Protein backbone atom coordinates (compact mmCIF):
# COMPACT_ATOMS: atom_id res chain seq x y z
CA UNK A 1 0.00 0.00 0.00
CA UNK A 2 1.43 3.35 -1.05
CA UNK A 3 1.30 6.40 1.16
CA UNK A 4 -0.63 7.99 -1.72
CA UNK A 5 -3.29 5.32 -1.22
CA UNK A 6 -3.31 5.92 2.55
CA UNK A 7 -4.02 9.59 1.81
CA UNK A 8 -7.29 8.55 0.11
CA UNK A 9 -8.55 6.10 2.75
CA UNK A 10 -10.92 6.90 5.59
CA UNK A 11 -13.04 4.98 8.08
CA UNK A 12 -16.11 7.19 7.70
CA UNK A 13 -18.14 4.08 6.77
CA UNK A 14 -18.06 3.02 10.44
CA UNK A 15 -21.32 3.90 12.19
CA UNK A 16 -20.91 6.99 14.35
CA UNK A 17 -17.63 8.08 12.80
CA UNK A 18 -17.66 11.73 11.74
CA UNK A 19 -14.54 12.04 9.63
CA UNK A 20 -12.38 8.93 10.00
CA UNK A 21 -9.37 10.64 8.47
CA UNK A 22 -6.46 10.44 8.57
CA UNK A 23 -6.11 6.82 9.61
CA UNK A 24 -3.30 6.02 12.02
CA UNK A 25 -0.64 3.87 10.36
CA UNK A 26 2.02 1.47 11.57
CA UNK A 27 4.18 -0.88 9.56
CA UNK A 28 6.04 -4.07 10.36
CA UNK A 29 7.24 -4.61 6.78
CA UNK A 30 8.04 -1.94 4.21
CA UNK A 31 9.32 -2.46 0.68
CA UNK A 32 10.95 0.34 -1.30
CA UNK A 33 9.71 0.11 -4.87
CA UNK A 34 11.22 1.97 -7.79
CA UNK A 35 8.50 3.85 -9.69
CA UNK A 36 9.19 6.05 -12.70
CA UNK A 37 9.12 9.73 -11.78
CA UNK A 38 6.46 11.68 -13.65
CA UNK A 39 6.66 15.37 -12.74
CA UNK A 40 3.36 16.18 -14.43
CA UNK A 41 1.54 13.54 -12.37
CA UNK A 42 3.06 14.75 -9.09
CA UNK A 43 2.26 18.42 -9.89
CA UNK A 44 -1.35 17.59 -10.70
CA UNK A 45 -1.77 15.25 -7.73
CA UNK A 46 -0.29 17.56 -5.06
CA UNK A 47 -3.32 19.90 -4.76
CA UNK A 48 -5.58 16.84 -4.22
CA UNK A 49 -3.58 15.55 -1.25
CA UNK A 50 -3.83 16.24 2.44
CA UNK A 51 -0.16 17.13 2.83
CA UNK A 52 -0.24 17.21 6.64
CA UNK A 53 -1.69 13.70 6.70
CA UNK A 54 0.94 12.52 4.21
CA UNK A 55 3.82 13.84 6.31
CA UNK A 56 2.34 12.38 9.50
CA UNK A 57 1.94 8.98 7.83
CA UNK A 58 5.44 9.05 6.36
CA UNK A 59 6.81 9.98 9.76
CA UNK A 60 4.86 7.16 11.47
CA UNK A 61 6.53 4.61 9.23
CA UNK A 62 9.95 6.22 9.44
CA UNK A 63 10.15 7.50 5.87
CA UNK A 64 9.59 11.22 6.18
CA UNK A 65 13.25 11.95 5.46
CA UNK A 66 13.76 15.60 4.64
CA UNK A 67 10.40 16.03 2.94
CA UNK A 68 9.21 19.61 3.66
CA UNK A 69 6.17 19.70 5.95
CA UNK A 70 4.67 22.37 3.73
CA UNK A 71 4.43 22.33 -0.05
CA UNK A 72 6.75 25.09 -1.35
CA UNK A 73 4.90 27.80 -3.32
CA UNK A 74 7.12 27.25 -6.38
CA UNK A 75 6.62 23.47 -6.33
CA UNK A 76 5.97 23.14 -10.06
CA UNK A 77 9.50 24.31 -10.87
CA UNK A 78 11.13 22.60 -7.90
CA UNK A 79 12.24 19.25 -9.28
CA UNK A 80 14.13 18.33 -6.13
CA UNK A 81 10.96 18.73 -4.09
CA UNK A 82 8.84 16.90 -6.68
CA UNK A 83 11.22 13.94 -6.62
CA UNK A 84 11.11 13.78 -2.83
CA UNK A 85 7.31 13.94 -2.92
CA UNK A 86 7.25 11.22 -5.58
CA UNK A 87 9.43 8.96 -3.45
CA UNK A 88 7.27 9.28 -0.35
CA UNK A 89 3.97 9.02 -2.26
CA UNK A 90 4.79 6.22 -4.67
CA UNK A 91 7.91 4.32 -3.61
CA UNK A 92 7.28 3.47 0.05
CA UNK A 93 5.12 0.33 -0.02
CA UNK A 94 3.64 -0.84 3.28
CA UNK A 95 3.55 -4.65 2.92
CA UNK A 96 2.45 -5.53 6.44
CA UNK A 97 1.02 -3.25 9.07
CA UNK A 98 -2.13 -1.66 10.39
CA UNK A 99 -4.41 1.28 9.80
CA UNK A 100 -6.30 2.69 12.78
CA UNK A 101 -9.58 4.61 12.84
CA UNK A 102 -8.82 7.90 14.63
CA UNK A 103 -12.25 7.95 16.31
CA UNK A 104 -12.94 4.33 17.30
CA UNK A 105 -9.40 2.90 17.30
CA UNK A 106 -10.70 0.05 15.16
CA UNK A 107 -7.70 -1.57 13.46
CA UNK A 108 -7.58 -2.51 9.78
CA UNK A 109 -4.80 -4.92 8.78
CA UNK A 110 -2.47 -4.45 5.82
CA UNK A 111 -1.32 -7.82 4.40
CA UNK A 112 0.61 -8.42 1.18
CA UNK A 113 0.45 -4.69 0.60
CA UNK A 114 -3.35 -4.66 0.64
CA UNK A 115 -5.38 -2.82 3.28
CA UNK A 116 -8.45 -4.77 4.45
CA UNK A 117 -11.10 -2.15 5.16
CA UNK A 118 -13.97 -4.60 5.68
CA UNK A 119 -15.98 -4.69 8.87
CA UNK A 120 -16.87 -8.04 10.40
CA UNK A 121 -20.44 -9.28 9.94
CA UNK A 122 -21.25 -8.32 13.54
CA UNK A 123 -19.93 -4.77 13.16
CA UNK A 124 -21.91 -3.86 10.06
Amino acid at each position, binding site marked *: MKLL*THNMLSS*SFIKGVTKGFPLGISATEIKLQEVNFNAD*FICRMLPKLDWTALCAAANSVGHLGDLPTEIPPDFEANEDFLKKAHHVLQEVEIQEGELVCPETSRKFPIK*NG*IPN*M*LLNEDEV
Partner: protein
Amino acid sequence: MMGETPDLSHLSSLDYESIYEPAEDTFLFMDALLKDFESIKRLRPLVCLEVGCGSGAISAYLVKMLGPGAIYFCTDINDKATIATVKTGALNRVDLNPIQTDLVSALVPRLEGLVDVLLFNPPYVITPDEEVGGRGIEASWAGGARGRRVMDRFFPYVSELLSPCGIFYLVVIKENDADDIANCLSKFKLHMEVVLSRRSGQERLSILKFSRPYANKQA
Protein backbone atom coordinates in the same frame (compact mmCIF):
# COMPACT_ATOMS: atom_id res chain seq x y z
CA MET B 1 1.58 -3.11 -26.10
CA MET B 2 -1.77 -1.36 -26.28
CA GLY B 3 -4.75 -3.52 -27.11
CA GLU B 4 -3.18 -6.75 -25.82
CA THR B 5 -5.01 -8.79 -23.22
CA PRO B 6 -3.01 -8.81 -20.00
CA ASP B 7 -0.98 -11.88 -19.14
CA LEU B 8 -3.00 -13.92 -16.66
CA SER B 9 -0.84 -17.05 -16.78
CA HIS B 10 -0.16 -16.78 -13.05
CA LEU B 11 -3.82 -17.69 -12.42
CA SER B 12 -4.98 -21.29 -12.63
CA SER B 13 -8.29 -23.11 -12.48
CA LEU B 14 -7.74 -23.39 -8.74
CA ASP B 15 -7.65 -19.59 -8.45
CA TYR B 16 -10.80 -19.37 -10.54
CA GLU B 17 -12.64 -21.36 -7.90
CA SER B 18 -12.43 -18.27 -5.73
CA ILE B 19 -12.14 -15.35 -8.16
CA TYR B 20 -13.93 -14.48 -11.39
CA GLU B 21 -12.31 -15.95 -14.49
CA PRO B 22 -12.20 -13.36 -17.31
CA ALA B 23 -14.91 -14.14 -19.82
CA GLU B 24 -16.80 -12.50 -22.67
CA ASP B 25 -17.95 -9.63 -20.46
CA THR B 26 -14.33 -8.91 -19.50
CA PHE B 27 -13.16 -8.91 -23.11
CA LEU B 28 -16.10 -6.80 -24.27
CA PHE B 29 -15.17 -4.30 -21.57
CA MET B 30 -11.61 -4.17 -22.91
CA ASP B 31 -12.90 -3.70 -26.46
CA ALA B 32 -15.11 -0.83 -25.29
CA LEU B 33 -12.20 0.92 -23.56
CA LEU B 34 -10.10 0.51 -26.68
CA LYS B 35 -12.92 1.91 -28.80
CA ASP B 36 -13.05 4.94 -26.49
CA PHE B 37 -9.30 5.34 -26.29
CA GLU B 38 -9.16 8.77 -27.93
CA SER B 39 -11.84 10.33 -25.73
CA ILE B 40 -10.36 8.79 -22.57
CA LYS B 41 -6.87 9.95 -23.52
CA ARG B 42 -8.19 13.51 -24.13
CA LEU B 43 -9.23 13.64 -20.45
CA ARG B 44 -5.59 13.25 -19.38
CA PRO B 45 -6.77 10.99 -16.56
CA LEU B 46 -5.13 11.54 -13.18
CA VAL B 47 -7.11 9.11 -11.04
CA CYS B 48 -8.69 5.85 -12.27
CA LEU B 49 -10.76 3.53 -10.12
CA GLU B 50 -12.08 0.05 -10.83
CA VAL B 51 -14.75 -1.31 -8.48
CA GLY B 52 -14.85 -5.10 -8.22
CA CYS B 53 -11.51 -5.70 -9.90
CA GLY B 54 -11.48 -9.53 -9.65
CA SER B 55 -8.26 -10.75 -11.26
CA GLY B 56 -7.21 -7.18 -12.08
CA ALA B 57 -7.44 -7.88 -15.83
CA ILE B 58 -9.48 -4.77 -16.73
CA SER B 59 -7.32 -2.40 -14.69
CA ALA B 60 -4.15 -3.90 -16.11
CA TYR B 61 -5.58 -3.43 -19.59
CA LEU B 62 -6.43 0.21 -18.80
CA VAL B 63 -2.92 0.95 -17.52
CA LYS B 64 -1.36 -0.62 -20.59
CA MET B 65 -3.65 1.52 -22.72
CA LEU B 66 -3.14 4.84 -20.93
CA GLY B 67 0.32 4.56 -19.48
CA PRO B 68 1.69 5.41 -16.06
CA GLY B 69 0.73 9.12 -15.78
CA ALA B 70 -2.18 8.35 -13.45
CA ILE B 71 -2.85 6.50 -10.21
CA TYR B 72 -4.89 3.31 -10.61
CA PHE B 73 -6.96 2.19 -7.62
CA CYS B 74 -8.92 -1.08 -7.59
CA THR B 75 -11.36 -2.40 -5.03
CA ASP B 76 -12.81 -5.80 -4.32
CA ILE B 77 -14.67 -7.30 -1.37
CA ASN B 78 -12.95 -10.65 -1.97
CA ASP B 79 -9.43 -10.96 -0.51
CA LYS B 80 -8.44 -13.55 -3.11
CA ALA B 81 -9.27 -10.97 -5.80
CA THR B 82 -7.14 -8.22 -4.29
CA ILE B 83 -4.22 -10.65 -3.93
CA ALA B 84 -4.65 -11.80 -7.54
CA THR B 85 -4.74 -8.15 -8.65
CA VAL B 86 -1.38 -7.47 -6.98
CA LYS B 87 0.12 -10.41 -8.88
CA THR B 88 -1.51 -9.40 -12.17
CA GLY B 89 0.00 -5.95 -11.75
CA ALA B 90 3.44 -7.37 -11.04
CA LEU B 91 3.37 -9.85 -13.92
CA ASN B 92 2.24 -7.21 -16.40
CA ARG B 93 4.59 -4.56 -15.00
CA VAL B 94 1.73 -2.19 -14.24
CA ASP B 95 1.17 -0.34 -11.00
CA LEU B 96 -2.19 -1.37 -9.52
CA ASN B 97 -3.28 -0.35 -6.04
CA PRO B 98 -5.91 -2.76 -4.70
CA ILE B 99 -7.95 -2.08 -1.57
CA GLN B 100 -10.24 -4.62 0.06
CA THR B 101 -13.48 -2.79 0.73
CA ASP B 102 -17.21 -2.98 0.07
CA LEU B 103 -17.67 -1.11 -3.23
CA VAL B 104 -15.89 2.21 -2.50
CA SER B 105 -16.70 2.71 1.17
CA ALA B 106 -13.08 3.21 2.30
CA LEU B 107 -12.38 5.69 -0.51
CA VAL B 108 -15.20 8.13 0.14
CA PRO B 109 -15.20 10.99 0.79
CA ARG B 110 -11.50 11.36 -0.06
CA LEU B 111 -11.87 10.42 -3.75
CA GLU B 112 -14.95 12.56 -4.32
CA GLY B 113 -14.64 14.70 -7.41
CA LEU B 114 -11.33 13.11 -8.36
CA VAL B 115 -12.09 10.04 -10.48
CA ASP B 116 -11.54 10.58 -14.19
CA VAL B 117 -12.16 6.98 -15.28
CA LEU B 118 -14.49 4.86 -13.14
CA LEU B 119 -15.02 1.22 -14.10
CA PHE B 120 -17.46 -1.37 -12.79
CA ASN B 121 -18.14 -4.85 -14.12
CA PRO B 122 -20.76 -5.63 -11.49
CA PRO B 123 -22.34 -8.87 -10.33
CA TYR B 124 -25.16 -8.57 -12.88
CA VAL B 125 -26.63 -12.08 -12.88
CA ILE B 126 -30.23 -12.45 -11.74
CA THR B 127 -30.19 -14.57 -8.59
CA PRO B 128 -32.30 -14.88 -5.46
CA ASP B 129 -31.70 -11.85 -3.22
CA GLU B 130 -30.35 -14.14 -0.48
CA GLU B 131 -27.31 -14.88 -2.64
CA VAL B 132 -26.24 -11.23 -2.60
CA GLY B 133 -23.84 -9.96 0.05
CA GLY B 134 -21.25 -12.71 0.12
CA ARG B 135 -17.53 -12.02 0.12
CA GLY B 136 -16.35 -14.95 -1.98
CA ILE B 137 -16.70 -15.80 -5.64
CA GLU B 138 -20.50 -15.52 -5.56
CA ALA B 139 -19.97 -11.77 -5.04
CA SER B 140 -18.69 -11.67 -8.61
CA TRP B 141 -22.03 -12.67 -10.16
CA ALA B 142 -24.91 -12.57 -7.64
CA GLY B 143 -27.02 -9.56 -8.55
CA GLY B 144 -30.33 -10.46 -6.90
CA ALA B 145 -33.61 -9.27 -8.38
CA ARG B 146 -33.16 -8.00 -11.97
CA GLY B 147 -29.42 -8.47 -11.34
CA ARG B 148 -29.49 -4.92 -9.98
CA ARG B 149 -29.00 -5.16 -6.22
CA VAL B 150 -25.28 -4.36 -6.12
CA MET B 151 -25.05 -1.87 -8.96
CA ASP B 152 -28.09 0.01 -7.60
CA ARG B 153 -26.24 0.38 -4.30
CA PHE B 154 -23.29 1.84 -6.17
CA PHE B 155 -25.11 4.35 -8.41
CA PRO B 156 -25.48 7.10 -5.76
CA TYR B 157 -21.68 7.21 -5.47
CA VAL B 158 -21.00 7.72 -9.16
CA SER B 159 -21.62 11.44 -9.52
CA GLU B 160 -19.88 12.09 -6.18
CA LEU B 161 -16.76 10.25 -7.33
CA LEU B 162 -16.49 11.55 -10.88
CA SER B 163 -14.33 14.54 -11.70
CA PRO B 164 -16.10 17.23 -13.76
CA CYS B 165 -15.19 15.49 -17.05
CA GLY B 166 -15.00 12.00 -15.58
CA ILE B 167 -16.51 8.95 -17.27
CA PHE B 168 -18.18 5.90 -15.68
CA TYR B 169 -18.21 2.61 -17.61
CA LEU B 170 -20.61 -0.16 -16.57
CA VAL B 171 -21.19 -3.71 -17.88
CA VAL B 172 -24.80 -4.84 -18.02
CA ILE B 173 -26.96 -7.56 -19.54
CA LYS B 174 -30.30 -6.90 -21.20
CA GLU B 175 -32.23 -8.08 -18.13
CA ASN B 176 -30.65 -5.32 -16.02
CA ASP B 177 -32.73 -2.82 -18.04
CA ALA B 178 -30.31 -0.21 -19.37
CA ASP B 179 -33.10 2.32 -19.95
CA ASP B 180 -34.07 2.16 -16.31
CA ILE B 181 -30.40 2.50 -15.30
CA ALA B 182 -30.12 5.55 -17.60
CA ASN B 183 -33.15 7.00 -15.86
CA CYS B 184 -31.64 6.38 -12.40
CA LEU B 185 -28.36 8.04 -13.28
CA SER B 186 -30.02 10.94 -15.11
CA LYS B 187 -31.32 12.02 -11.69
CA PHE B 188 -27.65 12.61 -10.83
CA LYS B 189 -27.24 14.65 -14.05
CA LEU B 190 -25.35 11.86 -15.83
CA HIS B 191 -26.01 11.10 -19.48
CA MET B 192 -25.77 7.57 -20.89
CA GLU B 193 -24.38 6.19 -24.12
CA VAL B 194 -24.04 2.57 -25.24
CA VAL B 195 -20.42 1.97 -26.24
CA LEU B 196 -20.64 -1.64 -27.41
CA SER B 197 -23.04 -4.56 -27.32
CA ARG B 198 -22.46 -8.23 -27.97
CA ARG B 199 -24.33 -11.46 -27.62
CA SER B 200 -22.42 -14.17 -25.78
CA GLY B 201 -24.29 -17.44 -25.35
CA GLN B 202 -27.43 -16.58 -23.41
CA GLU B 203 -26.18 -13.15 -22.37
CA ARG B 204 -26.84 -9.96 -24.32
CA LEU B 205 -24.06 -7.77 -22.94
CA SER B 206 -23.62 -4.02 -23.22
CA ILE B 207 -20.97 -1.60 -22.04
CA LEU B 208 -22.63 1.63 -20.96
CA LYS B 209 -20.87 4.92 -20.42
CA PHE B 210 -22.03 7.82 -18.23
CA SER B 211 -20.73 11.35 -18.13
CA ARG B 212 -21.91 14.90 -17.57
CA PRO B 213 -23.47 16.17 -20.78
CA TYR B 214 -22.14 19.73 -20.46
CA ALA B 215 -18.57 18.67 -19.71
CA ASN B 216 -15.97 20.00 -22.10
CA LYS B 217 -14.26 16.81 -23.04
CA GLN B 218 -11.21 18.47 -24.55
CA ALA B 219 -8.67 18.49 -21.75
